[in-house]
């Protein structure tokens, strides 16, 4: 997320380094959880009100594969837009 980390400080302390790694971990976790929520909803839950079957069928599997690809592509696209907005002085999402 280069639009956020502008200038890096020269020699971060241990706590700072750990905080950066924590942030990376929480970011990946968050994006993964959201992607899973959206893709399960779009590919599996809409047609499974009663869960008669535990296995993923062919249609669900293919849908999940594409959904992951599209979710990450959406994330890349929005990141680009965010960087553009950031350059135009908009700041980070109004806060």
């Amino acid at each position, binding site marked *: 997320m280069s639009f956020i980390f502008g200038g890096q400080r020269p020699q971060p302390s241990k706590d700072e380094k750990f905080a950066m790694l924590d942030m990376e971990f929480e970011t990946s976790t968050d994006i993964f959880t959201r992607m899973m929520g959206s893709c399960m909803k779009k590919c599996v839950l809409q047609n499974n009100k009663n869960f008669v079957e535990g296995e993923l069928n062919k249609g669900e599997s293919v849908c999940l*594969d*594409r959904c992951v690809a*599209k*979710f990450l592509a959406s994330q890349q*696209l*929005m990141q680009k837009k*965010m960087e553009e907005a950031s350059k135009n002085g908009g700041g980070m999402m109004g806060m």
Partner: protein
Amino acid sequence: MNAPNLTQAEQQEYQQRMERKSIQMAILQFSRLTQQCFEPCVEDFTSKTLGSREEACLTKCFEKFHNGQTRIAQRFQENMAVITNNGQGGF
């Protein structure tokens, strides 16, 4: 809730901590936004690349949220200033 008094050294240290927290919050807000725009804009899973209509929708959605968020943040700060001046306290 009264804000605690900080020494100057503590202020500086807290400043840095705040910066990190703000970055963290911005990142999580961004990932929420991604999901909020993905769900209404991407509904076709017969392909694994985004169509031009989907891309346009995601872009407009981003702008709409960006503009909405900016406006809400302004009003939030104005309203909070009024509430605090009325002595009703913050949160």
